[in-house]
Every structure is written in structure tokens, then in C-alpha cells.
């Protein structure tokens, strides 16, 4: 794949949001599920993503899965993004994109419930899907939709704390094109202030570049 084709692919992410006319009320919505652990800012990530989409004039909905809120316990949050009002409030069962903030959850919870071969998967790791033993599982998946970013390392470097949530949203913007890098940056600055905001912004921007570079690598490596 060439660069312009990648661009078309990311635009396809956007095209997915286009809805039909009044006569056929198709309510196409981009649905994201975020997995992490208590303390990693999973719920905040979903909220920030919804604010990024809101900043673009879209409808968005973020909500946590409800349960005990213990540090380290598995946490799930959801975000829907649409060009139209989002009426449903059911949990996201078949995500268009999956953000995994903590790779150690792989053997603990059913991270991949409802995913298809087309689902975007963004994994917080300095390694690869193969390194985590997921190579076989994702063999039939779209390789340009399977991306990794060392978000915890980026967070440590820019923020000084292992909080990968906002960083991964930069990666999400790079991976899907569903929201822009600038909308994510604006959402981070709306939520945080001072060095915390700027650290998260710098880390998110680096994650964006990392993921888009990774996409280019994948294009080059992909067979014709």
C-alpha cells in the first residue's frame, strides 16, 4: 500500500461515520472500547476521546462499565462517536476500535470479545503482538489496523508517571483518523493544566507520530 492509500484507509474510518438520509435512519456510529486497570485513567480516556469528538462538532458518548473501583482491578470504558445524536446506552459489544492500556490483561479478561478482523486494535506495549503471544490470534486481521505504542514509556518520559491513557489517544488519532491529533490535544488541555497538560500533550503527539510511522512501516512490509 502507498501513502495515499493509507490516507484513504483512515478516511474510510471517517466514511464509516457518514449516515444515510432521513428516509432510512441508519445511525452509523464509531464505537470504541478501552481496557485498562484502576488507576490508569481508563474512564478519563473515554471521556477525553468524547471531548475530542465534541470539539469537532460531533456527538459523542463516554461511559464506564460499572463495578468496583479498585486500583489495579480490570476496568472497561466505552466511547461512541457519531455525526448524529447517540440514543443507545448499551455497552459496546462489537467495537470498531479497541484500546488496550495494559497488556497484562490479555490473560485475565476477555479483551477481544466482539472484535472482527477489521477492528482497530491499539496496544500499549514496547513489543509486538507476536511478543505477547497474540500473533496467531490476529493472523487473519487487517494488519494496518493492529498497532502498538509504548505509551507507558512515553508517559514516564514526558509526565513522569506511568499513566498511558491520554498518550494512547494520540495513538488512536493516528491509527483511525476518527478524531484529529489537534482535537485530542485540545481535549487534554481542557481536562488538565500546567505541566501535566503539556506532558500529556507532548506524549500524545509522540504517540501519534509513532503510530503513523508504524503504519508506514506496515505499508512497506505489506505484500502487494
Amino acid at each position, binding site marked *: 500500500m502507498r501513502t495515499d492509500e493509507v490516507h484513504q484507509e483512515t478516511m474510510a474510518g471517517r466514511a464509516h461515520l457518514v449516515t444515510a438520509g432521513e428516509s*432510512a*435512519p441508519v*445511525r452509523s456510529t464509531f464505537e470504541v472500547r478501552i481496557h485498562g486497570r484502576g488507576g490508569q485513567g481508563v474512564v478519563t480516556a*473515554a*471521556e477525553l476521546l*468524547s*471531548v475530542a469528538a*465534541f470539539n469537532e462538532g460531533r*456527538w*459523542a*458518548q*463516554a*461511559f*464506564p462499565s*460499572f463495578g468496583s473501583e479498585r486500583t489495579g482491578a480490570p476496568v472497561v470504558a466505552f466511547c461512541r462517536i457519531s455525526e448524529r445524536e*447517540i*440514543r*443507545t*446506552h*448499551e*455497552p459496546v*459489544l462489537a467495537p470498531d476500535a479497541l484500546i488496550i492500556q495494559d497488556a497484562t490483561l490479555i490473560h485475565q479478561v476477555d479483551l477481544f470479545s466482539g472484535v472482527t478482523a477489521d477492528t482497530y486494535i491499539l496496544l500499549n506495549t514496547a513489543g509486538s503482538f507476536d511478543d505477547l503471544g497474540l500473533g496467531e490470534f490476529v493472523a487473519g486481521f487487517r494488519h494496518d489496523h493492529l498497532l502498538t505504542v509504548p505509551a507507558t514509556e512515553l508517559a514516564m518520559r514526558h509526565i513522569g508517571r506511568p499513566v498511558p491513557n491520554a498518550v494512547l489517544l494520540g495513538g488512536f488519532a493516528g491509527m483511525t483518523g476518527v478524531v484529529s491529533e489537534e482535537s485530542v490535544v485540545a481535549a487534554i488541555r481542557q481536562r488538565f493544566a500546567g505541566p501535566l497538560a503539556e506532558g500529556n500533550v507532548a506524549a500524545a503527539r509522540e504517540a501519534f507520530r509513532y503510530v503513523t510511522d508504524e503504519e508506514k512501516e506496515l505499508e512497506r512490509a505489506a505484500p502487494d
Partner: protein
Amino acid sequence: MLRQIEGSRAVAETVALCRPEVVSAYPISPQTHIVEAVGELVKSGRLSPCEFINVESEFAAMSVAIGASAAGARAYTATASQGLLFMMEAVYNAGGLGLPIVMTLANRAIGAPINIWNDHSDAMSARDAGWVQLFAETNQEAADLHVQAFLLAEELSLPVMVCMDGFILTHAVERVDLAEQDDVDRFLPPYEPRQVLDPDDPMSIGAMVGPDAFEEVRYLAHARHLQALERIPEIATDFASAFGRTSGGLLHTYRTDDADTVVVALGSVLGTIKDLVDVMRDEGTRIGVLGITSFRPFPAAAVRSALEGAARVVVVEKAFSVGFGGVLSTDIAMAVTGLALAVHTVVAGLGGRPVTGAALRPVLIAAAEGNAEGLTFLELDRGIVDRELARMAEHRHSGPTAENVLRDLGTATVQGV
């Protein structure tokens, strides 16, 4: 002003715009964020004058609201679930005394078994307390209903409970158009109490009433609810012209014209139902939706006229009356007495189980084809139920049901087994 905001925060901001003078607060999930945010607004001086009183229990929260309201203050509180039960004696008193307190109920299940998730059991437990009960479908409506609730409550001297789905709405971050202070001030005049405790003009509120007049006093509460049936749609119309959006009213219909099958529900599940109804309409099924906003007073005449053309109604309820079945269904059935119309009840979403379009779809398809049962429990795991029933038939000492069921499910949270 359009904001991307948590439902609880949107409610707190809107409540503050209504200028309550006394807010009594006791935290219980999922309403905690609301009173916390109101508390912040009081502390920062944005909501002033207002006395924010941290109380020691829900019983105190409602008792303080009663005292404040009787002294002529605009009073607000919020609760959920067991919190509502704990304040219930005072809830009935507020209703019986006709004190215009506004309370948010962040709907949640009631134990046992212990459960912190959403359903409508708490609201149903207060159905007959004499409060107006308005159900919000969205966070926008939840926010807007509070403005209307203060107006309605104070005009008629009746307490109003704004019910919004706990977690599903309270914890959802969504787009909400928050009202402006000037607009709320124009819409909601200062509280002019019908009855007030004033040291300069002493009187009592809360007389003991014997058999000679109890029925009359209770009927007068009913009469005010009948007045509310008139005022709720008028206030919604006034709200629409003042704020430029539709919220509240007695009920909402969606694609009910020519519908053979109408799905009836309360609260946020209506969103999922509308999405599903759109799909089924595309497939040629004549199906529509009736959302009840005002559960008490119950708009029987409006419900009847909305359902007149239908052949059947499917009432999707997040609560049920153990030993019988649907609660809302009973009201719907009364409202359509004499019409050739079948009423089916689908109990769904108990204790926070998500009500999905995928789960509802086969039930609604069967109903539209005339094959619905009278009472269905959505996605009931019959195998689990039958195992426990068999255990109970077999052993006298079969033990606690909840623990047995969790053990069968393999849930690791059961202690000591």
C-alpha cells in the same frame, strides 16, 4: 451552552441555576457526583445564597429538606436505592404535607441481594408516596426536567422526584445544552410558598387528621396530582418556547402512527428501543415507541389515546412486582381498558444487566407476529433457575439462593465456600 459533560455534573449545574436555598446531602452511589458537584458550586460561591448541609443519613436529608421547605426555602436533595428506602417515612411526609421539594433519584436496584447497579426498583417503591415522578430519557432531559420540576412543585405545592438511570445516565459523558442563568430566572420565579412557618405569624404544619377528614386530605393530594396532569404538558410547552428544545411533558411517542405494536418504557432504555424500532420499521414491521415521562401522576388518558390504534403493547420494565409481574404494565392495562389490545410485559435490565437491542429484537419480533407471552424475563438463564429450584426441592438445607446461584455461575466472589 453546549457542553460535553457527565450527566451528574449537568444535573448539578442545572440545579444550581434553579437557585435552591437549602441542599441537604448524604452520599450514595450513583448520585454522589451530583451532590458533590452542587457542594462545590456552593463552596465556590457560584450558588449563593444557599446552605449546603451535610447530614448524617438519608432520613436526615429528607427531614432537613422538609424543615427547609416548610420554612419557605427552595429545597433540594438527591438519593438512590437503599438511601430512598431509608428516608421513606420522610418521603411520604413530604408528599402528604405537600412540600415542594425537588429530589433527584439516580435509579438503582434495591437489595437483597446486594447490588449497586441500575434498575427502577427504587422509584417503584416510592410510587404511592404522593410525589410527582418524572423519568428522564437522556441527560439533556434529566437536566431540563429539574428546571421544570421546581416550577411544577412550587406552583402546585407538591414534591417532585426526577428519576434518571443511575450510572447509565449519571455517569455518561454526553453533549448537554446547559441552560443560561437569565433564561432559568425568567422561567422559574422565586418560591412563593402556599404554607410557611413564620415566627411572626405562627401556625403549625402537619396536623393529626382522624377518620373524619383523612380521606378528604388524601383526595386533595390526588386533586393536585390531577392538576399536575394539566400543568406538566403546559410547562413543557413553555419550556420549549423559552429554551428552544423539547423536554418533559407527560409522554413521548416515536413512530407510533399506524403502529400495530407499541413498545412502552421509562428512562434511558428508550434510546436502545428507538434504534431497534428504526431497524424493524425498515424491515416493514409496523412498530412504534411510547416513552412515559410522567409516571406519577399517570397520564392514563394520554396513554390511551396514544395506544388506541395499536393491536398490542409490549411494556419493557426495569422493575417488577414480585408475585405478580409488571408495575407500569398494570397502569398501561388500566389505561387501555375496553380497547382490543394485548398487553405484554418484558422485565429487563434488573440489577444493571444491559438491555441490548440484540436481546430485545427476537422478543419484539415475536410480539409483532402475535406470539408474545404475557410476562417474559429477558435473557433469563433458565438453567441456573432450574438448578436452584431442584436443589430446594431436594434438600431442606439448600442454603442461601444468591450464594448458590453465584457458585453455579462460577463467580469467584462468593466467600467461605
